């Protein structure tokens, strides 16, 4: 039987930072990932990491910007802690070896980002996520931990409401195995593949969220889905906000710089939800380009600046859209980008289940509230990854050893064998596309009662068909058809939670925009949505938002 003190699932920035903290606390730590750690989706983050280190900036301003950006749904105690950790987190990553871009005086270079009062975003060209991921991976290599690479998390094992470990699938051998752990940290990252048009990687299927949810963990604020304003037209590949931070501007089909009508003060650098809605409004009102997009112009920045500071963007545009941003505008439209919601946690990553912790995009602390600011998610992975790692290590130190019985493994294996034995039924990838289409149609940037109700009904019809899901590949080695099936079932559960939460929330706040309830409703809705699992569908309850110093105001940019 495989057995560890702390088992971290997911090896992006949050997972690796948690594993590092737990190892430094002296525990026996294992890190499990369905990829290789360096292939995690954290590496795709482009723009930067926020820290108020400039002389003219302050931690308080960072807190205020984050609270305002969250449309007052972020927990202010968590945000205060989060922002006050930023400076030392960035310094630590620099000491681990991150190669940040530099100002002429040798200090860390900073760029302006949307929704921020000062240039606060520290960066490594336009590949900040990759730079941080490399550095933490290199540093974690100096600690003794066990790594399970290319293993899928399949199930959490709980006895009497307490985590005992997991059941996992080794892609290389095809084996299903139990791994016992005194505490488990879920850092499984995004769930963007709930939608078809997303900037997220193909692996971003919300495995940890769905598995925790079915095991009884609370999912918080899942209806808040961030759509990034600028994704490449066809592929949905991300064009960083840093492109606008460096001076890029958005223009509609008539050549107008339309953001001046929506955000007169900061224009193209308004908060992401504001810019995404503006783009969709332009398109819906007939001022987009045929095919439904707008232009992101960088040409006026000049070849040298574009090619040095936005090198990856140049490559993306040239390789994936056949566009040279030095001479032509980039066709962009919004795409799903980030889930503000996730597994509900405390500041220390604790969930409502004993021994279960979560961090990073899979978690909801909540610091992003109804809308996340650019540059805050990389910081979140590191700050709360560390907290979750410390707390999980402490929990493990105080706990008796655990075990995963073979019955648990056999039960999981039974489900898979049933899917493999079917000669008829729905194919995982085709079925996944159906779920994604429902979400694009019913729970996109603008929402309303009729669409969301229809979406809920469509998902429950799909749920009936999901019972006939079938795995056609019978090989044991790298059976991706098997992982397709497991991931598709995760997506189905999460789609339902998003729809039900969005239907219930009869207001517009941050990224959740209801055309039938266009105003924010603080009297009734300044509270977190909590979804808990029932076989017949999610049960919703609500929890208060934590306040410290900032009174809710109208959000104007």
């Amino acid at each position, binding site marked *: 039987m495989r057995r560890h003190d702390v088992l971290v699932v997911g090896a992006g920035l949050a997972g690796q930072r948690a594993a590092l903290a737990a190892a430094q606390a002296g525990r026996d730590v294992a890190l499990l990932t369905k990829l290789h750690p360096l292939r995690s989706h954290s590496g795709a983050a482009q723009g930067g990491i926020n820290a108020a280190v400039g002389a003219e900036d302050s931690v308080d301003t960072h807190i205020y910007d984050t609270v305002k950006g969250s449309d007052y749904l972020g927990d202010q105690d968590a945000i205060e802690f989060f922002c006050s950790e930023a400076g030392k987190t960035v310094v630590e990553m620099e000491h681990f*070896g991150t190669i940040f871009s530099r100002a002429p005086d040798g200090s860390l270079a900073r760029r302006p980002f949307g929704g921020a009062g000062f240039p606060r975003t520290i960066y490594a060209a336009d*590949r900040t996520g990759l730079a941080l991921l490399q550095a933490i991976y290199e540093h974690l*290599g100096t600690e003794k931990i066990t790594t399970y690479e290319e293993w899928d998390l399949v199930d959490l094992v709980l006895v009497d409401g307490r985590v005992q470990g997991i059941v996992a699938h080794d892609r290389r051998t095809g084996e299903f195995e139990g791994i016992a752990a005194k505490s488990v940290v879920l850092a499984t990252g995004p769930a963007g593949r709930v939608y078809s048009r997303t900037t997220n990687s*193909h692996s971003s299927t919300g495995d940890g969220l769905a598995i925790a949810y079915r095991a009884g963990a609370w999912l918080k604020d899942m209806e808040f889905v961030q759509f990034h304003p600028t994704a490449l037209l066809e592929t949905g590949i991300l064009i960083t906000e840093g492109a606008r931070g460096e001076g890029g501007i958005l223009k509609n089909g008539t050549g107008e710089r339309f953001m001046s009508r929506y955000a007169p003060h900061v224009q193209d650098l308004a908060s992401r939800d504001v810019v995404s809605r503006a783009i969709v409004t332009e398109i819906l009102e007939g001022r987009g380009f045929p095919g439904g997009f707008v232009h992101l112009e960088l040409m006026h920045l000049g070849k040298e600046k574009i090619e040095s500071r936005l090198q990856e963007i140049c490559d*993306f545009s040239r390789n994936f859209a*056949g566009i040279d941003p030095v001479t032509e505008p980039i066709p962009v439209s919004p795409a799903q980008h980030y889930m503000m919601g996730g597994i509900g946690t405390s500041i220390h990553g604790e969930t409502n289940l004993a021994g279960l912790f979560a961090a990073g995009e899979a978690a909801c602390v909540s610091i992003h509230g109804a809308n996340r600011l650019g540059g805050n998610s990389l910081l979140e992975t590191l700050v709360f990854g560390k907290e979750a790692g410390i707390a999980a290590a402490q929990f493990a130190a105080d706990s008796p050893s655990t075990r995963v019985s073979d019955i648990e493994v056999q039960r999981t294996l039974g489900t898979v064998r049933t899917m493999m034995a079917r000669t008829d039924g729905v194919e995982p990838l085709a079925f996944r*596309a159906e779920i994604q289409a429902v979400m694009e149609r019913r729970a996109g940037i603008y929402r309303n009662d009729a669409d969301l109700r229809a979406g809920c009904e469509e998902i429950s019809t799909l749920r009936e068909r999901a019972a006939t899901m079938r795995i056609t590949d019978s090989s*044991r080695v790298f059976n*991706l058809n098997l992982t397709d099936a497991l991931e598709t079932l995760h997506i189905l559960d999460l789609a339902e939670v998003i729809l039900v939460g969005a239907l219930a929330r009869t207001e517009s706040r941050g990224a959740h925009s209801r055309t039938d309830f266009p105003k924010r409703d603080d009297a009734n809705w300044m509270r977190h949505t909590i979804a808990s699992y029932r076989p017949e569908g999610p049960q919703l309850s609500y929890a208060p938002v934590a306040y410290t110093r900032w009174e809710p105001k109208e959000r104007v940019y």
Partner: protein
Amino acid sequence: MVESVSVPLSVYRFDPGRDASPRYVDYRLDLPRHTPVLTALLKIRSEIDSSLSLRYSCRSAICGSCAMLINSKSRLACQTQVGPELDLHGRIVIDPMRNQPVLRDLVVDQRPFWQDYERILPHLVTDPRHPMPEGKPNPMTPEQVERFHETPRCIACGACYSACPAKEADPTFPGPMALAKLYRFVVDPRDGATRERLLRIQPGGLWTCLRCHLCTTSCPKDVQPSERIRDLKELAIREQGATEAGSRHAVGFKENLHDRGLLNEMRLVRQTDGVLGMLRQAPQGIRIAAKKPELLHKPRRIEGQEEVRRLYELLEDEEGGA
């Protein structure tokens, strides 16, 4: 709408646990010319054969998962469009990467690649004489950041490792990616373990590299490993002197050209392998000499030899100043 073209694909399939030998399966898809090869393969998975196995994740050339051979060239499937491949080859043949054993279909066992990566001590080692400033970032100028060249862009996809003939010929060679990574630490002003790193890559080290540049031409992120290996060779000679056959050969080559403008093969062998080494190679030398006796002659000095020397002086002045 963008016009589609008919794309013939021939894809390597092999499940070692079940198949006696690999085979190619042909598919034909209608796709717009700018469609990435990865999209074509995913279309096969979702519409024709869900048992096709490959690694992929980000589809934007940043996770490094989908390196494979596309018409015999190591590259990322997500970054290679079908149109230009059809223009060049008429069809698209897909194989798994080389220099790593196949696990299934296009999935290779990357453990050798990662073991070679581990050899270079892949983490920052603080120079005890320059401890990290407490609570502050290390100062580093934009010029110092420039010195990393493109090595921080490496996404560890393994395309260079797959393309490398030196790796194929000599398994002790760490391969281009590990050496580019080594360079990344060597130029880091925060790092103090250059000497140890250079020792750790022995044997096989730097000098197995043939300077064929296939790593550089196959790199999807323009990391230019062969250029960085050249820089490391220069550094190794500066730091350690010409202590290995490879570096002695390089230095001997230079001295030959400096002195006469032509190679003196006899002298070069002696410089590279020493007198004993010469004796060991004598039988082969005699065989060669029987066919090409001119190799035994001491070459004459070429016309304009002074120009060659002046070029060397200029180069040395330039490097001394740098």
